[in-house]
């Protein structure tokens, strides 16, 4: 991927973000859009971990939980501004990823999957059990980030939905830019190289353990920031954000869209965020249809949606 392709991808993303509201039937869809962008952000983190470095995690919702509860807890207990709590959460997540990543990234394949799974479960259990602090399974309120009054003073009146749509879009663009930078860089190349062959990566001097760890920490920060944004825009948070189902959802979005591709990740997040909204009419069968769609995609488009589609276009000899 060249620098030009990077800017094209970011351009496509920005144009979609700007154009989409024109098609919204109601203000409610700003909320849905914001949710898509937040999900896409954590999925881009997994693109770095799974797509670039070839390592799996079934516990990344744990980092989303840390980011979310940082925003719920830090303003009240540490007197931190909610916006700074996002950074605090990211810092704690990075530190946590550094500490647990070192031992568990020595594991491969399903051993690594189980170890990360354990981490995710641990975080959600702590969040559920520390009732005095987190309110337990019932969840807790998250303070307002307080930026809308600031905008209003500057003469900009936006609804909560509009504000979070724009804020999530901006953070997602930033996240996409960083992940695309990484892809082209020496660090990203080292990650992709060890994904291809750890043996060969070592012979060119790549410290495999170090670059796996970097990918893990980076993806943890993405998940954490996404968790923070989710908490802030909902104004309320429960331990489900750190739960196993959320981890699985993240990996599924990544794989569905195309795990090596930043735009694909966004597409995967969009589809899996929208599908349940569309399928509510099917009520009880929602999960069934969702599972079925995913099986079909994996059978017929094993690279994920976006890479499979682009490959098909190229195959036609443009």
């Amino acid at each position, binding site marked *: 991927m060249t620098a030009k392709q990077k800017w094209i991808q970011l351009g496509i993303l920005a144009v979609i973000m700007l154009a989409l509201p024109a098609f919204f039937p109601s203000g409610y869809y700003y909320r849905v859009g914001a949710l898509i962008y937040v999900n896409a952000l954590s999925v881009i983190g997994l693109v770095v971990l799974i797509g670039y470095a070839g390592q799996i995690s079934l516990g990344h919702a744990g980092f989303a939980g840390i980011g979310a509860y940082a925003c719920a807890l830090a303003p009240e207990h540490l007197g931190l501004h909610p916006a700074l709590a996002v950074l605090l959460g990211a810092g704690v997540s990075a530190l946590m990823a550094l500490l647990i990543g070192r031992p568990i990234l020595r594991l491969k394949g399903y051993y690594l999957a189980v170890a990360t799974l354990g981490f995710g479960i641990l975080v959600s259990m702590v969040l559920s059990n520390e009732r005095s602090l987190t309110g337990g399974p019932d969840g807790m309120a998250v303070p307002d980030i307080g930026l809308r009054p600031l905008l209003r003073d500057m003469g900009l009146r936006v609804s909560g939905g509009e504000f979070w749509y724009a804020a999530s879009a901006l953070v997602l663009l930033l996240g996409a830019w960083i992940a695309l930078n990484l892809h082209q*860089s020496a660090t990203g190349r080292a990650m*992709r190289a060890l994904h291809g*062959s750890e043996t060969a990566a070592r012979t*060119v*001097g*790549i410290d495999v353990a170090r670059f796996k760890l970097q990918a893990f920490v980076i993806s943890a920060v993405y998940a954490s920031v996404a968790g923070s944004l989710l908490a802030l825009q909902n104004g309320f948070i429960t331990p489900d954000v750190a739960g196993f189902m959320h981890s699985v959802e993240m990996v599924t979005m990544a794989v569905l869209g195309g795990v090596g591709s930043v735009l694909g990740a966004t597409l995967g997040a969009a589809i899996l965020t929208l599908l349940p909204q569309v399928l509510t009419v099917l009520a009880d069968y929602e999960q069934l249809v969702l599972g079925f769609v995913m099986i079909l995609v994996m059978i017929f488009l094993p690279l994920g949606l976006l890479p499979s589609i682009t490959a098909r276009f190229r195959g036609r000899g443009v």
Partner: protein
Amino acid sequence: MTILEVKGLGISFGGLRAVNDVSFSVKPGEIVSVIGPNGAGKTTLFNMISGVYVPSDGSVSLNGEDITSTPPHLLAARGMTRTFQNLQIFHDMTVLENVIAGFHLQERPSILGDLLSLPAARRRSAAVREKAVAFLEKVRLAGAASEQAGNLSYGALKRLEIARALAVGPKVLLLDEPAAGCNAVETEEIDTLIAELAKSGIAILLVEHDMKMVMRISNHIVVLDHGEKIAEGTPDVVSRHPDVIAAYLGTEEEPAHADG
């Protein structure tokens, strides 16, 4: 002036003594070949020298410093790298990116510079890219630079591996059957390239089954059979050595080794 010295190297897998008490040395600019029948222990020997396996006996030194069981990525930093008998390619990366990856140590990636695409990181990447293209030209793969490596033919991938190894800037280069699966023209090219590399001062340790090539380009040959060094010397001496002829043609002596 020895650059690579192997002393009494040995390793066992379960009950199998794959390599036993092998010693030899390589000087800068010299081509030393390791030959022997299938399963003689050549690749295993390479794996011990290059830090992939930890030997159970013996030592390896590079420039007089002990490097026994140093991990491969640190050996690369000390100037030793290798290619593989069973290709080890970054299949999902482009041909050019495979070679650029060889410049990893020279590029010295900084995580912040790379995430934010800072000018210093971009400059280093651009400089390395040009050098990588030059190495691709050397192995006549420049035309395929932007292709996905996985799409290349076997012979082309063999050459790509060599180009990637050269990008590391090695003082000692281990080549495990670089001409295997290549046609006569490609073999000739690899042959010329290896001679050229040696002339530039790189110490080459070579495993190759193509005897014509080995005899033509080697300064020194080490013969392995059943993990043991059975002969050593110039191509002339080795090709006339009775044990070598026996090992390759299989005389009455053979069964005595085989039950070991």
